[in-house]
């Protein structure tokens, strides 16, 4: 390692880097044993940057340039079951290609980390951001954390292995960062010193692994109807541990970084009458709209969900308990569904509450359409209007869609 890098590694410092480089930086510090990845826009910068660390001998990671995303997840699963810390990255159609292996990772209880540069699914083909990939994977037993900016992408990349590899969890983890909106945006990112991250993340120490000396075990056996149900239920139950473990990890992260990250990020929600609930980098535009509404005397607020899976049901219900109208902002379309993804999550969370709020399902920003303050002004306007705040089940209120003037 050259002197300059040594110095950099020893100290906390501020870097002007994009979200992809920030993730790669954290990956270097967490030093997976194996990174197996296939390039796909807009994730390519992550693995290109990481491969530079490999080429310079700054990590002892085996970097496997696999021939497809399915192979990437397969190799990560092989690495993790062998006893190694494994990580990869992908986006949109790449996630779709590795989809078969997602539930294999969780079913085998392997804490593989996936850095997901959120990207639209085809068709039509788009390389730009939306959350269709994120939404598609949410039932596969992966812990999912969504960040809003490069700093959070870095922080969550540091948290990832710590949470995933916890002995009470042992589940795979997705660090979601918006494609282009975070991956390619250069901002100030405060990074921790190498040894602080190393200590925080710790070592991967699974109880059962294929290369364990002196032990012979079989992994991935098939289960008949007499055992499958039990093995699945066991995974689902362990998944619930991810919530307290994440909260604990976030609290400890606060100690070492000074940054307060929580499973939910409320904004002006305490006395709000209406609230927008959303994920990811629309953060700035949403807050601007909330502020503008407040200036007009409308008691608007917002709730950004950071820990998306396991969905913090109780915390979300509590956060929204005083609100009279909730607008969920989905950046993906659940075609044919009674509600879009986040809408269903929130609706289910407050379903047993007496006196439920009006709820409306908004969709914005598909295929990279930039979330703009004006979109969310329109959402707030609808939620503030008693005639328009209640959505129709199965109907989506689009924000920023050109509809030729028809409703």
């Amino acid at each position, binding site marked *: 390692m050259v002197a300059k890098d040594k110095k950099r590694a020893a100290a906390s410092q501020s870097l002007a880097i994009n979200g992809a480089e920030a993730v790669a930086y954290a990956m270097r510090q967490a030093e997976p*044993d*194996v990174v*197996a990845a296939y390039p796909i826009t807009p994730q390519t910068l992550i693995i290109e940057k990481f491969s530079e660390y490999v080429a310079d001998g700054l990590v*002892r*990671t*085996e970097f*496997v*340039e*696999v*021939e*497809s995303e*399915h*192979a990437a997840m*397969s*190799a*990560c*699963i*092989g*690495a*993790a*079951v*062998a*006893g*190694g810390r*494994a990580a990869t990255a992908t986006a949109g159609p790449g996630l779709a290609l590795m989809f*078969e*292996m997602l539930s*294999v990772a969780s079913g*085998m209880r392997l804490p593989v980390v996936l850095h997901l540069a959120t990207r639209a699914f085809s068709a039509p083909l788009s390389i730009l951001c939306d959350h269709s990939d994120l939404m598609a994977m949410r039932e596969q037993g992966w812990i999912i954390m969504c960040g809003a900016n490069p700093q959070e992408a870095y922080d969550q990349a540091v948290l990832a292995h710590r949470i995933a590899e916890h002995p009470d969890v042992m589940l795979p983890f997705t660090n979601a960062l918006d494609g282009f909106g975070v991956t390619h945006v250069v901002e100030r990112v405060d990074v921790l010193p190498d040894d602080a991250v190393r200590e925080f993340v710790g070592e991967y120490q699974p109880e059962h692994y*294929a*290369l*364990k*000396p002196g*032990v*012979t*075990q*079989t*992994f*991935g*056996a*098939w*289960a*008949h109807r007499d*055992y499958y149900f039990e*093995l699945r239920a066991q995974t689902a139950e362990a998944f619930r541990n991810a919530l307290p473990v994440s909260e604990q990890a976030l609290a400890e992260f606060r100690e070492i970084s000074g940054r307060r990250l929580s499973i939910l990020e409320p904004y002006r929600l305490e006395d709000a009458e209406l609230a927008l609930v959303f994920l990811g980098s629309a953060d700035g535009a949403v807050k601007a709209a909330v502020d503008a509404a407040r200036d007009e005397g409308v008691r608007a607020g917002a709730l950004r969900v950071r820990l998306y899976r396991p969905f913090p049901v109780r915390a979300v219900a509590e956060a929204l308990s005083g609100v009279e109208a909730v607008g969920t902002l989905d950046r993906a379309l659940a075609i044919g569904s009674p509600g879009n993804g986040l809408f269903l999550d929130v609706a289910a969370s407050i379903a047993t509450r007496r006196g439920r709020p009006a709820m409306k399902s908004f969709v914005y920003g598909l295929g990279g359409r930039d979330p703009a303050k004006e979109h969310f002004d329109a959402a707030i306007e609808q939620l503030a209007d008693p005639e328009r705040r209640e959505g129709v089940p199965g109907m989506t209120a689009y924000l920023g869609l050109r509809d030729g003037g028809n409703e």
Partner: protein
Amino acid sequence: MTTLRLRDLAEKPSGLACGHGLCAGCAEPVAVRQILTALEHPAVASVATGCFEVATTHYPTTAWNIPVVHSAFENAATTTTGMEAAHKALVRKGKLPPHPITFLAFGGDGASYDIGFQWLSGALERGHRFIYVCLNNEAYMNTGIQRSGATIKGTSTTTTPVGQAVPGKVAWRKDLTAIVAAHRIPYVAQAAAHNWRDLATKVRKAEACGGPAFLNVLVPCPRGWRYDSAHTMQISRLAVETGLWPLYEVENGVYRLNVRPRELKPVTEWIQSQRRFAHLLRKGNEEVVSDIQANVDREWRELLQRCGIADEKPVEAAANG
């Protein structure tokens, strides 16, 4: 190093336990047991979804006496390369001792020729140090005898059944061994279940070659090929004697024929030995039979040329060819 004497091999603990669910007379467990016994170093394997995996890893039991991983159907090669990569990193970090481990990947012809073709090719191209074993019974047996890229023309399978209009599979078959050899990996070979000495020798070479190795092992299937289970090894032998399944190896690009029958038996003997070809004995299917013969002859000539012995006369056939 244990010699290749059955007496010595029989002393070694078996990599495969009794009580597995493979059919009576199935050649797959014979091949796998022989392979595991022939290895010098401790082994860790992955196995693709298929007959062998299903019959040996029925939760909560396992027939494996070595660490083994199943993750999916198409990716045994990639799962193993993930393990191999992790091993390198963990040894590098001092978290595992540097003792040699032989990494294996097992897949049927379905997993290797077809659904896992890309995964196999990528793993070979990257140069991981592992042995890929294709257990070739010429169809997707576990799902009920459907045709694969390894099935020969004219075979009756459940997706190429013999009907009024079509007499079995239409396409010839893929030459996966040649395709793998084109990856220029250090060791490639075809073997068969009956010739244990040939297979064990090849396993040893594969283990020692220092890079990716590929063994394509013919494993006759009494159920799918429809013959009496006692004849499995005879049929394996017949595949070699008719030229359907030559035993050869490619060591650092150099082709060598390991068993050369004095004269190839006609494919009709192959066809007559298994009821999956019974329809080809009926009137009207003569062209299919001659087409099969022509394809076998062509492949045999090409192989002899690659081995550089096309003009030589064959020596007396080996006793256990």
